[in-house]
């Protein structure tokens, strides 16, 4: 096997990060460019080039396809991702604090202090579920599902009621941040410019 054949095989492996639909249509084209840019005697993709392909592939797999004209929905979905990230960071910070022996054997999760010995597993489970909920709602919203918009609004109302039950500065800050994200999301979803995006049947019509 020649150096170029080795290089091409390795590039093909990296292209596996892309969705199959993209690979069917554009992988050969992209591979042609990669090979045209390769140095003489190059046998392996460079680190930056590999990261570029892995990042591009992941981005294509994860990004939601929302028509450009629906800016408010796009931004709402981005805020929902931010909500998921903030929730994950909150969870990670709590676990890290426990790892360092701080936190008085209690897990601070989404603004609530849980008893470590009893509730840590439940807390992490709930945390994971909340992250999944953010991501599910983001996807459903991006697909134009009306029920997801209603669900997001109901959850925001529940979060608003729940907001006043927090104790401690850190809990209040985390909850207030998440509540603010929720407020922006709900406001964006009910803007007149978002209305056309949602259909009661859950079927998105893209023109």
């Amino acid at each position, binding site marked *: 096997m020649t150096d170029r054949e080795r290089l091409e095989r390795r590039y093909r492996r990296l292209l596996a990060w892309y969705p199959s639909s*993209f690979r069917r249509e*554009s992988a*050969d*084209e*992209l*591979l*042609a*460019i*990669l*090979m*045209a*840019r390769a140095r003489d005697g190059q046998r392996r993709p460079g680190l*930056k*080039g590999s990261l*570029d*392909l*892995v*990042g*591009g*592939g992941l*981005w*294509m797999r994860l990004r939601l*396809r929302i*028509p*450009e004209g629906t800016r408010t929905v796009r931004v709402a979905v981005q805020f929902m991702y931010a909500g998921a990230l903030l929730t994950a960071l909150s969870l990670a910070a709590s676990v890290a604090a426990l790892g360092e022996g701080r936190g008085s054997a209690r897990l601070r999760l989404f603004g609530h202090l849980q008893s470590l010995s009893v509730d840590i597993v439940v807390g992490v489970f709930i945390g994971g579920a909340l992250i999944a909920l953010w991501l599910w709602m983001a996807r459903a919203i991006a697909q134009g599902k009306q029920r997801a918009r209603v669900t997001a609004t109901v959850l925001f109302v529940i979060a608003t009621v729940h907001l006043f039950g927090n104790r401690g500065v850190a809990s209040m800050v985390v909850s207030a941040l998440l509540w603010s994200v929720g407020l922006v999301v709900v406001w964006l979803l009910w803007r007149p410019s978002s209305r056309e995006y949602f259909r009661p049947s859950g079927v998105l019509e893209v023109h």
Partner: protein
Amino acid sequence: MQEATFMILTALANGAQHGYGIITDVEEISNGRVRLRPGTLYTALDRLREDHLIEPDREEIVDGRLRRYYRLTRAGTSRLGAEAARLQAHATVAQTRLKLIGGTSA
């Protein structure tokens, strides 16, 4: 509009180009400042096609490999024109103010 997107659309404003051509053209018109990596380029092309700003023009087989050309759509041309006008307006304001500063200090 992101700079890379603007540069890709600018490259296509001169006529249909294939992926490698876009990369070299963008590097040339930006004086080597913007260097698109293939993964980044195809992510951008995918998004631009989805937004109907560009579309495939034709395909060729060169040395046994596919070469697809892309061109601007009418919406892409319009969008690039609007973005160029916006940037030009900002640049004009900046240059005018810089001249004023120069005139004051001189």
